[in-house]
Structures are given as structure tokens and as C-alpha cells.
């Protein structure tokens, strides 16, 4: 028996959501199909934009600015994979309920699924990019940190929950404040630069932040830990010899494996709570969708 009432408790929302996994997967598949319908290259396009970003940052930071980090492409790639997933999902999901107003007003289903389908599509692109990264590592014979590899799923799950939470909340807020869509693009740009994707935290700003006691603030950005974990796993070395000066460079935190694990496990717990909060916030906001869309 199903009950439709003024506001469903969180447990019911979660159960409804889980019960509609099939709808989620059909929406993800149709999202991707529609995006590349009629294009000859199809999914290859989903690789082209990240490839160009990668090439640009590599040229700027490694060739022109000569940051001296050896194998900089691998460092960049492992961080960008994480960032691309987050950014593309949040960007797409922010406007999704407004864009699919016709559907939202006529068909009954848990509306969070729309945002989650954007996250799911980004996850597919993430999977493809990760595949390319692994193939690339195999070609240049760069071994990942095998002993750290088991932390990857934990970190990825935290990434998923973080992305989904923000996507769900933003999709609902945009219904009431349409500006949020444009605001989010700006926020995401800023967010990108406070995350250690194209620069190394340890090498460039750690000392300055420590001097001002702001190091902890930097780590409040949950993306930082996820990106660092991916870099630790795929780039491996924490300290390298600069290709320009020959001096040692601190690239990544020298934490032991246990620290990476505890931090990621903590983040996973935090994002799980965040996800539940996002669902209940969405539940509060969705009651008035009808009169706002």
C-alpha cells in the first residue's frame, strides 16, 4: 500500500528512491542517447572536451610555466577525472527540474531521480575517463600505488554521495531562484581553483596557508581529500625531483595509508549524512514545485 500525504518521512523517501532504480537507469541511458543522438562520433565527444582541458593545462603549467613536476600529465589527469565528474553532474542537475517541468508536473515519480540521472550520466563519463587513464598508465608503464588501491572505492563513494547531495539540493533551489543556475557556474569555477587539481597543494600554497593558520580551512573543501586520494593512488610519488632545478619537490601529503583510509572513511560518513539532509531538504522544497514551474 502506498500513502500520499503532505510530507513523506525520510525513510519513505529513501525507500521510494531505491524502488525506482530501474527508472534511474532508463533515464541515464536515455540522457546519454539523446545527447549523442545523430552524432557520428557519439560518446567519443564526451572524451574530447576533457582531453582538450588536459592538454591545455599541461601546456600552460608544465611547458610554459615549467612547474618542474615530472609526469605532470598523470598528476593532472588523476585530479581532473574527479573534478569533471563533480562539475558536469552539478552543472547539468542544477537546471534539470526547471527544464523537465512538463514531466515533473504530469508524471509521478520521486523527483530526485532527475538530478540523480545527471549524476549517473556523469558517472558513466567518469568511468570512460578512468578507463582511458588506466590505459594511458599502462602505455607509459607507470604503476599505480597498488597498496592504496582499496581506498579508491571508499573515496569514489564519497564523491558520488557529495555530488548527488549537491545536485539534488541545487535542482530544487533553482526552481525558486532561477539565478542559481548562473551563480553555480561561477561558484564551480572558483571551487575548481581552491581544489588541488592543476597545482600541487604541498608544493605551492601549503607553506603560506600554514603561516596564516588556514591549512585546516583548505581541507574543509571535501573535494580536496578526494582529489588528493586519487592523485596518491595514480600519481603515487609524494616527493619528486624537479625536472627544472633538480631539487626535491613535495607534491602530495606524506600521510600513511591509515590516515588516507580514516580521512576517506570519515568523509564517506559525512557525505552519507549530507545525502540524507539533501533528500529531506528536497522533500521540503518539492511541495511547491507545481506553483513555481
Amino acid at each position: 500500500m502506498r500513502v500520499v500525504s503532505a510530507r513523506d518521512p525520510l525513510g519513505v523517501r529513501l525507500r521510494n528512491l531505491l524502488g525506482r532504480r530501474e527508472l534511474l537507469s532508463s533515464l541515464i541511458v536515455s540522457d546519454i542517447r539523446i545527447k549523442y543522438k545523430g552524432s557520428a562520433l557519439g560518446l567519443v565527444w564526451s572524451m574530447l572536451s576533457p582531453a582538450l582541458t588536459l592538454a591545455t593545462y599541461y601546456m600552460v603549467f608544465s611547458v610554459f610555466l615549467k612547474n618542474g613536476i615530472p609526469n605532470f600529465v598523470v598528476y593532472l589527469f588523476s585530479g581532473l577525472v574527479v573534478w569533471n565528474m563533480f562539475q558536469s553532474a552539478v552543472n547539468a542537475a542544477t537546471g534539470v527540474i526547471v527544464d523537465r517541468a512538463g514531466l515533473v508536473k504530469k508524471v509521478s515519480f520521486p523527483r530526485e531521480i532527475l538530478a540523480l540521472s545527471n549524476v549517473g550520466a556523469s558517472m558513466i563519463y567518469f568511468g570512460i575517463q578512468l578507463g582511458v587513464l588506466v590505459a594511458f598508465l599502462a602505455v607509459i608503464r607507470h604503476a599505480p600505488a597498488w597498496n592504496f588501491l582499496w581506498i579508491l572505492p571508499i573515496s569514489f563513494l564519497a564523491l558520488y554521495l557529495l555530488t548527488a547531495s549537491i545536485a539534488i539540493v541545487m535542482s530544487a533551489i533553482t526552481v525558486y531562484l532561477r539565478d542559481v543556475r548562473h551563480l553555480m557556474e561561477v561558484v564551480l569555477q572558483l571551487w575548481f581553483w581552491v581544489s588541488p587539481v592543476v597545482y600541487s597543494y604541498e608544493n605551492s600554497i601549503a607553506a603560506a596557508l600554514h603561516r596564516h593558520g588556514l591549512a585546516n580551512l583548505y581541507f574543509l573543501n571535501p573535494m580536496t581529500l578526494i582529489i588528493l586520494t586519487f592523485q596518491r593512488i595514480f600519481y603515487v610519488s609524494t616527493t619528486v625531483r624537479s625536472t627544472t632545478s633538480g631539487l626535491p619537490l613535495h607534491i602530495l601529503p606524506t600521510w600513511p595509508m591509515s590516515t588516507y583510509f580514516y580521512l576517506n572513511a570519515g568523509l564517506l560518513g559525512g557525505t552519507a549524512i549530507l545525502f540524507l539532509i539533501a533528500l529531506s531538504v528536497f522533500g521540503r522544497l518539492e511541495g511547491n514545485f507545481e506553483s513555481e514551474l
Partner: protein
Amino acid sequence: MVNVVEVEHVSKQFKIHHERHQSLKERLLHPRSGSIEVFEALKDVSFAVSAGETVGILGRNGSGKSTLLKTICGVLQPTSGEIRLRGSLAALLELGAGFQHELSGRDNVYLYGSMLGFSRKMVDAIFDDVVAFSELEHFIDTQVKFYSSGMYVRLAFAVAVNVNPDVLVVDEVLAVGDERFQAKCIDRIRVFQDEGRAILLVTHQADQVRAICDRAIVLQSGRMVADGPVADSLRVFRDYLLGEAVAPDAPEAPVALHIDAVTTPSGAFETRHGASLHLDVDVSAERAGAGYLVLEIFTRGGLLVSRTDSQASPVSLSPGSNRIGVELSDIPLLDGVYEMNVGIVDRPGGTVLAWREKAVTMQVVYEGRASGVIELAPLIRQ
């Protein structure tokens, strides 16, 4: 009987913003500007639908019919109250609302099916039936954006009825599609009824309610004003239509009329096929005026046999009681019991001034071999 839908004290309020500040800048600049009016679309509506029942929901535009259906389907959440549903529910609020134009008909069947809450496996099992019902065999792999509106509707309806839900909710969608497809949909709905599934139907067409429904609910500005047998609810619905139509232009309005009785000289409404029947319609009028008499004849099953208005001969009414004589000659009806509604309209196809639902129950005796409703009397040549 098990109740498959229980609506309990459901109210729904909408906030209407009179000055919309949707941009962030405007919200910041005018934090409290713009009045918000609360509009009550549904006020404390309660009813239940049991398995196998077909319930019609009648109401004028803006009476809350669609809001009620949407809350039942879970598209809207009630502001207060609760709706309990047992079993699966398929809703046709707007045909093809879930369709993605860029995808083929085939992909849309699966997507729409999953939106209605059915698994891929279940859709696989009914896919051929869906295609056959929609008659789109040649176009199923064409992108939906190339479909005509009729094809669109056919596909959506085909999905919704073939997933075999326990409750089917239909919102005025039967009005689209050509007549043949409409008849097919009605047939399908009858199969549904025979299988003991519940149907909730919103429609403007009183004939359709009479033909399909077991029960009807009338909504009037968000309140449920009638819930009962179709004939009773239709009478209430017509009363409200009348009340609303006459009230605004009262001085100019045609006289307030009432059909007091419909009688026949012999006392019994019995006639033979081919014979004639005389009816006396007693109408009381407050003031003098004119109108046109309307007769509707139905079979017991609710099928409209004929609806006529006496276009050529308006009736003039004087204050007090009037008697209008109606002569039905050479009745072509076959054996059976027929029901007749009698009404008066201000002009052919115009506003109803007075109405009497089931004014007459008429029996026709026929001794020939033909069966059905009317005699065709074909001449056979060889």
C-alpha cells in the same frame, strides 16, 4: 470490496505570487514585496474507490478535478489529508508527457513504462501488445518527434492500458484520437472493468460518464458536492452548471424555469415499435420567455440513442405553468426499456435553462426478428 483508493480529508492549497521575484537580485531587493494569495484548489475531499469500480469525476473548469487526480497519482502532495493506494497505478494525465522526442517509439515505450513504475522485464512481456494496440508497427523505430499528434496519443494510451495497472487514472484524454481509436479505448476500458480493475475518469462529456461509470463525483470549487449513482451526480452537475450560468446576468437572464413533470395521457410510458407516443411536459416559469425543448433518449446501458432539440419550433412560455405537448411518431426503437432526459435550452446548442434527468422510463414492445436498438429494415435484392 477492497478499497484500492482511499482519499481522506484531502486539501490542497496553492500559493499564487502576484509579483514574482524569481531572480536573486529581485529577491534581495524586494525581500517582502509581492502579495501571496492562497488558493484552495481542494477542500476536505474524501471518498473511496473499491476494486472493479469505475468512478467519473465531473466538474467545471477550475473546479479542482485535475488537482484531485494529480494528488491521487502523487504528482502533487496534498497540503493536508492522506491518500492511500493499494496495488499499481497508471495515470494518463497528459498523454505522452513522459516521452522524449529524440528517442524512438520503442525506447519511449520502455522509458514511459519505467516511469509508470514497471520493470523492463514487464515491458518486454507486453511490448508486442502495446505496438499492436497502438497500430504503429511501421513507426515504432521512428523518433517520436516525427509522430503526428494522433500517433503520439495512441502510443501513450497503449502503454498505459497494457501495463495492466490495478488502478487506471484517465484525465480527459479520451477526447483525442479519431473516433475508431476512441471506441477501441472504451472497449479496452470495459475489459478493464470486467477484470475487476478500478478506473478513475475525468471528463466533460456526460455521455461518457453515463456510458462507462458506475458512480460519479461532482466537484465544485474544490468541494465535493456529490458522490453517488451516475444519474444523481449528473443531475447535481447540471444544477451547478445552471446555477452558475444563470446567476451572473440575472436581469436579462431567461426566465427561471422548472420542469415539474413529464406525463403521458395513458399514464404508462409504453408503446409499440412503429407506434407513437404523446408526452406532456409541464413547465413552470416565473416570467414569460422562450426556449427550445431538448430530448435525450438512452438505452438502459447508458448508450445515447438520440438527442434532439426542437430547432424549428421554439416554445414560448408564459408566467405560471405551461404544458408542452411532444408527439413522438413512428418510433423506430426495438424492444427494450429506454430512459429519457428532458430539458429546455435558451437556443439550440446554448445554455440549459431547465433539466430533468431520467424524466421518463419508456418501454417499447417489438415483435419482429431484429435485435439491437433501432430497426433498419433493409431491402434485399438479388
